[in-house]
Structure formats: structure tokens, C-alpha cells
């Protein structure tokens, strides 16, 4: 057999793994009712493909071939184990006689399998960190080592987290199913939270291995797309829109030297127009459903910003209205703070400052650095230099992120020289 044929098959198998392993694993777990057995079976099926396809050629439906080969491999495995553990024989027999319904699967059942897998990996009974790790490994097909690198954790720690989560799934008998309609809204919430956590892990970091971190955002968007395809609920679309619209600004939000650039100062020609167009379209679909929630509202705000040629041309009244709606859907002091900043843009710094001072007086955001830096910024605009300085200094003592520290220090230096006039 020529080396080149093997090489070719290896390459197409790598691509197939990336694109289809989530689907194949999802179906095998349903067929075999065992996470670990299914994973072994899938690995064995890919190994068998590498052995056979260079001679036999790539089958017409590679996914179906891999699923049915995996199923037979699992039956083989159980048979071999039965020599030492008789109970395995019964399981093997049962698997063999069961009609292989949905092995190849009309697309409907296969798509349901993927949803089952996502809901199982994001089950609320699992620790939050474990949900993220499990989803990236089982649904996205990332290796333990890749996930560990992206999250700046050691591979052994992450491996243990995954082992424990799988044990929990087995021992707590977490069902392999899409939740009932009554449970669905809450369970979707848990899934979306995992996806957004993955996205933010890749988006907010701007130091260290920034390249692998950006890959995490791409992975989250891929997951978001998959979810929209499988479960086109308004908030699912809203989250994908939000991620796309934030991601569209990636190139503009850091300077070539790695400094943070605020929305107001960003070079908007660097924004990714394709991502914006896709995001805006999704927001419109979600909004028209009238069943939207916090993700859609945040995406809608991001869309308003995306449509403005500069900060001054932004439709601030609409942003303020959207924050008002968000405060009803998901009230929090941080949302209130953001609304105050939007009010300042609409009605002037004085109006915003009044709201922020009232908010700080309540004490909720006393230790939140962005509240103090927002206050500082409004004071600066009003020419109240001394107040601005002490607020920037307070913010500086509260933040640990290096780019933010540099940004605040820069603002402080600028205050030192001039008279506080812009």
C-alpha cells in the first residue's frame, strides 16, 4: 500500500474527527448507554478506518460506517471482558439482538443525539468547571491537553475533573436525554452559560497565550451555531448574535502594543462587517419572537453600536431603552451602572454622574473597579479634576487585570498635566 494513500486517509480522518466526532460519540452513547464504552468504541472505529480505508476506499457514508463499526467494536470489547466478568456477556447479547435502529439514523435522531450530549455535559448536577471541560472535550472534540492549555491549567488537574464528571454522570444516573418542555428554559440557561463562559475566557484575556485563547472564542461561536441549528430558541440566537458582535471588534479592541482600546476610541474600519451582518440578522430574528431575554437584549445593544459610524452618531436613546428592558429581565447593579453611562451619553455627564453617585451610595458597587473608573471619566469630562483623580486611583486599587491597570495609569497621567479639559 503506498504511503501516500495512508497519508491521505489520515488527513481526511483528522478532518472527519474535527467535524463529526461529536455526532458519532453522541449516537454511540445512546446506542451503548455508557460514556466510556462509547468513547473507546469511537476511538477504535477511527483506528479501524485508518487500517481499512487505504485499501477498501472511503465508504459512501463515513459517519454511518464509523458508528456501526464502533458499535461492533463495543460488542467485541464486552465479549472479551465477559471471559472474566460474566455479566458483560448479557449486555453484549442484548446489544447484538437489539435492532440497530437509528444506527445510521435519519438525520432527526442523530441531531437529537447531539442535543442529548450537550445537555448531559452541561447538566446542573456537575460542577461548573467540569461542565465547561466536558463540553469542550466531548462536544467540540478538543483534547484534554488543548483545553488545559487554553485555560492555563495543568493537564492532570483537568483530566481528573473530566474523570470525576464522568463518574458523576454514571453514578448519579444523569439521563441521556433532551429535557422536557417544562424543564427546557432552565436547562437551556445552563447550556448557554457554559457557551458564554467559554467565549469570555477567550475574549477577555489579552495576555499570555493569546492565540490559544482566541481559539476558545471561535470554539464558543461554533457551539453557538450548532445550538441555533439544533434548538432555534430566541435566547440561543441572542447569545450567538452577542458573541458574533463582540468578536467582530476583536481587531480594534487592542492597540498594536497590546493596550486596551475603549469602544469610543476604536477604529471602526477594523470591525468585521460579515460578523456584524450575521449578528444583526440574528438579533432581529430573536427580537421578533417577543420571547427574548438578557442575551438578546445585550446583543441588540451591541448591534446598535455596530451600526453607528462613530460614538457620537450612536443611537443613545435606544441604548438607554434597551438597558431599561434589561433591568427588568435581569436586574443587577452592573446593568444599572451601564445604563447610567448610556444616560450620560444621551443627556450629558451631569445626569450620568447623579445616577452613579446614587448607585455607589447604595454600596453595592463599592468594590467594583468599573464603577469608580466610570465615575472618574464623567468627572473628567466635567472638568472636576481632583475628583476624577481620586476615583481613578480608587479604581486602580481594585483591578488586577494588567491592561486595565495600564489604561487607568494612562488616564491618571493625562489628568496630571492638563487642566482636565478634554
Amino acid at each position, binding site marked *: 500500500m503506498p504511503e501516500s494513500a495512508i497519508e491521505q486517509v489520515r488527513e481526511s480522518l483528522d478532518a472527519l474527527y474535527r467535524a463529526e466526532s461529536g455526532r458519532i460519540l453522541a449516537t454511540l452513547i445512546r446506542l451503548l448507554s455508557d460514556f*466510556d464504552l462509547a468513547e473507546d468504541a469511537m476511538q477504535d472505529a477511527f483506528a479501524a478506518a485508518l487500517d481499512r480505508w487505504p485499501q477498501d476506499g472511503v465508504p459512501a457514508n463515513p459517519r454511518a460506517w464509523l458508528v456501526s463499526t464502533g458499535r461492533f467494536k463495543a460488542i467485541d470489547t464486552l465479549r472479551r471482558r465477559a471471559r472474566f466478568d460474566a455479566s458483560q456477556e448479557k449486555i453484549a447479547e442484548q446489544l447484538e439482538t437489539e435492532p440497530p435502529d437509528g444506527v445510521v439514523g435519519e438525520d432527526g435522531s442523530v441531531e437529537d443525539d447531539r442535543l442529548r450530549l450537550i445537555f448531559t455535559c452541561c447538566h446542573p448536577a456537575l460542577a461548573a468547571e467540569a461542565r465547561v471541560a466536558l463540553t469542550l472535550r466531548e462536544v467540540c472534540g478538543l483534547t484534554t491537553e488543548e483545553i488545559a492549555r487554553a485555560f492555563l491549567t495543568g493537564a492532570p488537574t*483537568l483530566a481528573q475533573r473530566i474523570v470525576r464528571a464522568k463518574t458523576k454522570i454514571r453514578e448519579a444516573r444523569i439521563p441521556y436525554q433532551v429535557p422536557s418542555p417544562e424543564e427546557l428554559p432552565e436547562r437551556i440557561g445552563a447550556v448557554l452559560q457554559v457557551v458564554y463562559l467559554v467565549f469570555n475566557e477567550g475574549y477577555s484575556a489579552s495576555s499570555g497565550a493569546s492565540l490559544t485563547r482566541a481559539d476558545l472564542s471561535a470554539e464558543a461561536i461554533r457551539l453557538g451555531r450548532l445550538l441555533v441549528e439544533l434548538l432555534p430558541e430566541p435566547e440561543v440566537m441572542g447569545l450567538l448574535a452577542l458573541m458574533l458582535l463582540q468578536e467582530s471588534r476583536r481587531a480594534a479592541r487592542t492597540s498594536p502594543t497590546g493596550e486596551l482600546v475603549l469602544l469610543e476610541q476604536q477604529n471602526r474600519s477594523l470591525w468585521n462587517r460579515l460578523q456584524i451582518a450575521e449578528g444583526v440578522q440574528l438579533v432581529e430574528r430573536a427580537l421578533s419572537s417577543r420571547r427574548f431575554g438578557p442575551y438578546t437584549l445585550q446583543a441588540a445593544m451591541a448591534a446598535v453600536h455596530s451600526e453607528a459610524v462613530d460614538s457620537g452618531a450612536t443611537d443613545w436613546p435606544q441604548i438607554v431603552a434597551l438597558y431599561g428592558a434589561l433591568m427588568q429581565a435581569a436586574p443587577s447593579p452592573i446593568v444599572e451602572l451601564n445604563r447610567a453611562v448610556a444616560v450620560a451619553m444621551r443627556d450629558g455627564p451631569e445626569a450620568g454622574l447623579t445616577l452613579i453617585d446614587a448607585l455607589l451610595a447604595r454600596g453595592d458597587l463599592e468594590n467594583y473597579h468599573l464603577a469608580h473608573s466610570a465615575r472618574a471619566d464623567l468627572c473628567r469630562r466635567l472638568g472636576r479634576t481632583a475628583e476624577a483623580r481620586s476615583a481613578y486611583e480608587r479604581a486602580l486599587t481594585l483591578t488586577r487585570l494588567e491592561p486595565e491597570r495600564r489604561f487607568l495609569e494612562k488616564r491618571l497621567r493625562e489628568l496630571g498635566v492638563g487642566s482636565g479639559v478634554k
Partner: protein
Amino acid sequence: MKYICLGYIEPGKFENLAETERNALMDECCTYDDELRKNGHFAGGEALQGPQSAATLRWQEGKASVTDGPYAETKEQLGGILILEARDLNHAIQLMSKHPGVKVGPFEIRPAADLGEMVRGSELRRAAAKTK
């Protein structure tokens, strides 16, 4: 990706098993190794003779000198190695946790280090030295 699995065992533990138990364990291990082999996960492996059969080579006072044994104080000694072909660390853990050998002693699983870059660097240095 290759993972080196270092199997540790108390000296004499295997030898001191009753014959039927020892045979059963041996059969289980061989069966499982065959299973690994069949699915392309077994990339090599050897059992080791006891530590009393070992010679240790060390650089001392400008030359290599030999002593016997590793003189380790630990109860468990390296008893064998298995080279595993697995997709990632969790896959390796999964494969080895079903290995019957884990019942008699712990396995340490270490990913093989990729020295490709260093080896290529060395090749370049040596090639450059030759042309000088």
C-alpha cells in the same frame, strides 16, 4: 500521541501470589494487552526483572562508573513499562484504568515529550559544524 505508562509493584508481590491467582492475573493482563494491540493502542512494552538485577551507570569524577541496584527505599519498584497510543490524557487514563495490572500496583502515566524541535536544532548545528 504516545503515553508512557510506568507500572509500579512491590517486589515479590506477584511471585507470592497463589499459582492459580498468578495465572489468572497473567491471563487477564495478556488478554487486555491483546485488546490494546488489536485496536492500535499498544505501541510497545516490557516487564522488568527485579531491582536486584539492575546496574546503574553514573558519571563520577570524569568517568562513567557502575553500581548495582537503584537502592530505592520506596516499597514499590518500577516493574514494567507500556507505551500507549492514545488521543489525549483522559483517553490514556481510560484505557489504563481497565488494565488488570492496576489491581496489583499503581501506574504512572506520562505523555511522551516531543523533542522534534530540539533534534532538528541539533541536526542543523551538526550539519553546520561539518561544512566549516
